[in-house]
């Protein structure tokens, strides 16, 4: 035997050697969709520095530049690779800033429904009994309705309840609330299911015996063990939440033109479809579809890769 003791590999080396990374490197779909998601994230979050123009800077807009077709067409301008809209705003920059808003709303609303779903799921699963029955009944009833319909109605009601000045300034948060509240039952159900399994295990009994409080047990003992499946569902729901936001903005009840998400851009462009300026609506549409498709593919892959039964 050699005297040299092999140093345990570092965290990064272990991560790179894992089954997970191996499965990832063998799946072209996962790699491509991961790349697209990363491009979208980078393009969106660094849009103020990366975008060729600032569509919100009114001083830089020139109406003479309006309705310029994409650069590859006959009268295109190389300064505006995907053309300009009716105000002379660059479409590419608009998409980058819009994707930022779409992702912001999507991520925050999923975060919100995760928060609500995990909390209610833990309580329902851990306490059981009457609380559980009531919460799950409500979830069942809500699941009967498509989430987009719930988001639409919640959005409409919240706007009607808030005073006008508040509602106009808080539109983005109203939207996040509406989309988030429409999706909590899925998370709550999953968490409830795994909480009920965990509750019966010995370590929870031990925690009870040493006199820990119920909230403490739920938060620091059960929650870490039930989080995995929920996070995978969250990835799959992120794409749907982004679509919800785009749909509501397209319907004109989402974000106003002063905070244009991809959906708002598509709605604005829709007005010019008949006069032949198709690029104003088609390019934001392609960007939205690519973003959602790659998030969905990545979510699908993640679900399969983390599911030991499918290996």
């Amino acid at each position: 035997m050699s005297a040299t003791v092999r140093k345990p590999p570092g965290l990064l080396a272990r991560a790179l050697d894992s089954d997970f990374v191996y499965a990832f490197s063998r799946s072209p779909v996962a790699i491509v969709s991961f790349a697209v998601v990363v491009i979208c994230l980078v393009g969106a979050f660094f849009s103020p520095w990366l975008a060729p123009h600032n569509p919100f800077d009114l001083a830089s807009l020139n109406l003479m530049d309006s309705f310029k077709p994409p650069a590859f067409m006959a009268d295109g301008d190389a300064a505006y690779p995907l053309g300009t809209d009716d105000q002379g705003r660059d479409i590419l920059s608009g998409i980058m800033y819009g994707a930022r808003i779409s992702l912001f709303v999507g991520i925050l609303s999923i975060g919100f429904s995760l928060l609500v779903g995990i909390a209610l799921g833990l309580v329902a699963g851990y306490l059981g009994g009457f609380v559980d029955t009531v919460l799950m009944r409500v979830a069942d009833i809500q699941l009967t309705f498509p989430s987009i319909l719930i988001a639409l109605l919640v959005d409409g009601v919240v706007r009607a309840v808030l005073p006008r000045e508040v509602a106009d300034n808080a539109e983005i948060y109203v939207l996040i609330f509406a989309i988030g509240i429409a999706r909590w039952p899925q998370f709550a159900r999953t968490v409830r299911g795994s909480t009920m399994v965990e509750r019966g295990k010995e370590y929870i009994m031990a925690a009870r015996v040493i006199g820990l409080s119920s909230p403490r047990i739920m938060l620091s003992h059960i929650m870490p063990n039930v989080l995995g499946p929920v996070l995978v569902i969250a990835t799959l729901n992120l794409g749907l939440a982004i679509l919800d936001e785009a749909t509501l903005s397209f319907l004109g009840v989402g974000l106003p033109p002063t905070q244009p998400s991809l959906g708002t851009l598509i709605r604005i462009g829709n007005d010019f479809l008949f006069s032949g300026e198709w690029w104003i609506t088609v390019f934001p549409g392609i960007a939205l579809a690519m973003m959602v498709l790659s998030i969905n593919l990545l979510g699908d892959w993640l679900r399969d890769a983390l599911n030991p039964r499918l290996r």
Partner: protein
Amino acid sequence: MIGFILSRLLQAIPVLIVVGFISFAMFAFVGDPVTIMLGQDYTEAQRVRLVHELGLDQPFFVQYAKFMWKALHGEFGVSYRLARPVGGLILERLPATTELAAVAAVFALVIGLPLGVYTGIRRTSFLSRVVMIFSLLGVSLPTFLIGILLILVFAVLLGWLPSFGRGDVVHFSHWSTGFLTLSGLKALVLPAITLGLFQMTLIMRLVRAEMLEVLRSDYIKFARARGLSQRAINFGHALKNTLVPVITIVGLQIGGLLAFSIVTETVFQWPGMGLLLVQSISVADIPVMSAYLLLIAVVFVAINLIVDLLYYAVDPRLRMVRRASAGSR
């Protein structure tokens, strides 16, 4: 059987009561109908009289009971935006949405089912792969984008089909139909495809997955060993057994069809209930919103009931299971 239907009906009642309650809460507490209906100038006496006429001075549960009683009679109050009874407004818009949803559902089934069977049987053929790639697009593209792209290609560039409205409709007392005129039929094509495409891809992928599952099973192998024809195996044995999940999804997707008809109707300016709802939400027209919510709850409860009954008809095993576990739910 009758007991089963009754128990399902009893389960549906709490749902309707809860939704009715939410719908009433919206109606009663969101916005202030009195100030909206009185306008700018009014005296205190006028206000008190209107409050009394609207029954807003009565106890909460009395108001709720009255609201539900009126709703049962098709009275949902007066639209703030259009100053007309909501019941009549919705009734007027109902045929447009029903026809659109029905055509979309038929389209989704007639195209989706055969494609699912084909891609399930000929899993590796070139055509199957092309279809599968397109179906992935169908799932990821938002409904409104599909509508816009179809308008761009078939209405703007090619000019084959109209891009908005219902075309000419024929009226029968309460019902108006676009099925009987050429322009009505033409106007249906693009909205129906837009609305049905997502459901079609869903049905197709589901049927394919189920077919793959079933074709691997022992009784299919046995049917092959008995020397039955491919057609008898694929359609008589395999397809039949894929139908239970398909019925569930198709049934539940009818609700989805109604929800997404909101989007499709907005894209195509289709004069249905969805367009009415969107226009109402943007100006906070609460009576229309609460009536729509109640109506859609009734539709969904009815659909769930029908889906349950269809299970019963399609899968004989369920009858046994239900009988065995009766009372345990």
